[in-house]
């Protein structure tokens, strides 16, 4: 069988075997509801507590500051909607960026329809928020700043510490969507002055359907789901015990080898970037050259369209993703690529490849060879390339 080269780890990751193994008993023998009084339930409760401790420790947070949710999108929705509502007497202005995940952008649009005002900050050509622009956007009625830790498409890391310090100085709540960064980049909520942080299990070899919102102690935030005393009455519903256990295991695993794993990924990522830029003409790297997630590479190949490229890569067993309109279900390409200033046709020809620890140099050599072949072929079929070559003559 042809080897599958899975390079879409920003979309989701494979649940690690030891994570699956840790979860299994909580489907079968330890199936009790953590809220029940009998001994069977105590096992479940203990497991949830332990996972919470592991996660809190990884962030430099206290255990009671971690609130499990059904995923990153829920955590984002909760943070923004509840913070806006809780602090609306203080002001109705929110600041975020143009390159957030839709879980943030669409929630902001919803808030705008409900009487809030939102400033969407521009980013520079690498996708980085400019702190001085943020400073200028702050108003007396600004109650919340939400800036993602790392971008999901182009991998760019944001100046979170500076943003956190600024927010703290001005007395404004600071939320960060760390779905892509958690488990890949060291994060300390105190050091970065983070008040709320969203994360998800399946981006770090944990299970899908589990995430959390970190909420700094003392912060007034209404309950998101009503109906029970779970998660300190802030998020009702019987705990997803296997999911929480798996998430805890995944975090333990990701933090145990973070340095060596990310160093390996960084080396391979740079190898991939260098070869692609050198060997495929009319190609650009999207996002910052070095200040990016260790496993993220994002290219634009001129004169071709991303979906065609993905299908042809898939035929060779290579999984990637694109910011082209055809893969987003709309007519517009990725909002992130447009925000960094790419013209539409260049944004349509984008390819994101995100590594994991299993990817080898040999895999990347294969990927580069396939890319060269496929891109040449697609260009030979492209009227844009034909026009370009004609003009060049």
């Amino acid at each position: 069988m042809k080897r599958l080269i899975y390079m879409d780890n920003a979309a989701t990751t494979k649940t690690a075997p030891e994570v699956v193994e840790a979860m299994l008993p909580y489907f079968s023998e330890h199936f009790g509801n953590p809220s029940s009084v009998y001994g069977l339930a105590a096992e479940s409760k203990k497991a949830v507590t332990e996972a919470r401790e592991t996660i809190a420790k990884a962030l430099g947070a206290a255990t009671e500051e971690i609130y499990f949710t059904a995923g990153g999108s829920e955590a984002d929705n909760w943070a923004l909607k509840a913070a806006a509502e809780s602090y609306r007497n203080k002001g109705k202005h929110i600041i975020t960026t143009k390159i957030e995940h839709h879980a943030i952008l669409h929630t902001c649009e919803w808030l705008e329809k409900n009487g809030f005002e939102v400033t969407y900050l521009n980013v520079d050509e690498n996708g980085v928020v400019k702190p001085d622009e943020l400073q200028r956007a702050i108003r007396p009625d600004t109650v919340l700043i939400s800036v993602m830790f790392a971008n999901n498409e182009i991998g760019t890391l944001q100046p979170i510490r500076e943003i956190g310090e600024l927010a703290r100085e001005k007395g404004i709540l600071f939320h960060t969507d760390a779905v892509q960064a958690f488990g890949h980049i060291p994060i300390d909520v105190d050091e970065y002055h983070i008040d709320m942080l969203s994360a998800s299990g399946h981006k770090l070899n944990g299970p899908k359907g589990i995430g959390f919102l970190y909420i700094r102690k003392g912060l007034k935030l209404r309950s998101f789901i009503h109906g029970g005393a779970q998660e300190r009455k802030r998020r009702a519903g019987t705990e997803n015990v296997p999911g929480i256990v798996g998430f805890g295991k995944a975090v333990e695993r990701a933090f145990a080898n973070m340095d060596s794993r990310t160093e390996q990924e960084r080396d391979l990522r740079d190898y991939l970037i260098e070869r692609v830029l050198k060997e495929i003409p009319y190609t650009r790297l999207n996002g910052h050259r070095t200040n990016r997630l260790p496993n993220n590479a994002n290219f634009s190949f001129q004169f071709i369209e991303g979906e065609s490229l993905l299908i042809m890569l898939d035929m060779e067993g290579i999984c990637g993703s694109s910011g082209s309109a055809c893969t987003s279900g709309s007519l517009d390409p990725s909002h992130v690529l447009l925000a960094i200033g790419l013209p539409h046709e260049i944004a349509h020809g984008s390819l994101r490849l995100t590594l994991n620890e299993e990817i080898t140099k040999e895999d990347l050599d294969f990927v580069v060879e396939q890319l060269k072949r496929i891109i040449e072929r697609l260009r030979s079929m492209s009227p844009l390339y034909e026009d370009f070559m004609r003009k060049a003559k």
Partner: protein
Amino acid sequence: MYSEKVMDHFQNPRNVGEIENASGVGTVGNAKCGDIMRIYLDIDENQVIQDCKFKTFGCGAAVATSSMATELVKGKTIREAMEVTNKAVMEALDGLPPVKVHCSLLAEEAIHAALWDYAEKNGIKIEGLEKPKSDIHEGEEEEEEVY
């Protein structure tokens, strides 16, 4: 996502290329939306399409519909070629996902644009043929996206 026929025409597109001194060339779509199709026709003195080639910038469905459209008009008279509708292209491909129906429309438009070019060059009128919408966007004057 795609039918076997679509995948076949995407993987092995028929009639890719250019025709030098073509009787008619039509280019439709725009780079902004991510689809551009160019069709070349070689039409003989009896108004029969002797050869047809295409070049496409676009998704899998855009390539497949271009390929199928060229197959459907090849060997036909220009009158018959006018009857190759987007529906005919879609049916020949065993259907397209709903979001890709516009690709088949683009294929029909590309054929019409090439026929229009031929008609103009030869000073003739083709019944039912309208002037194609010129939609090509060079991408030089990009305005900033408004949220």
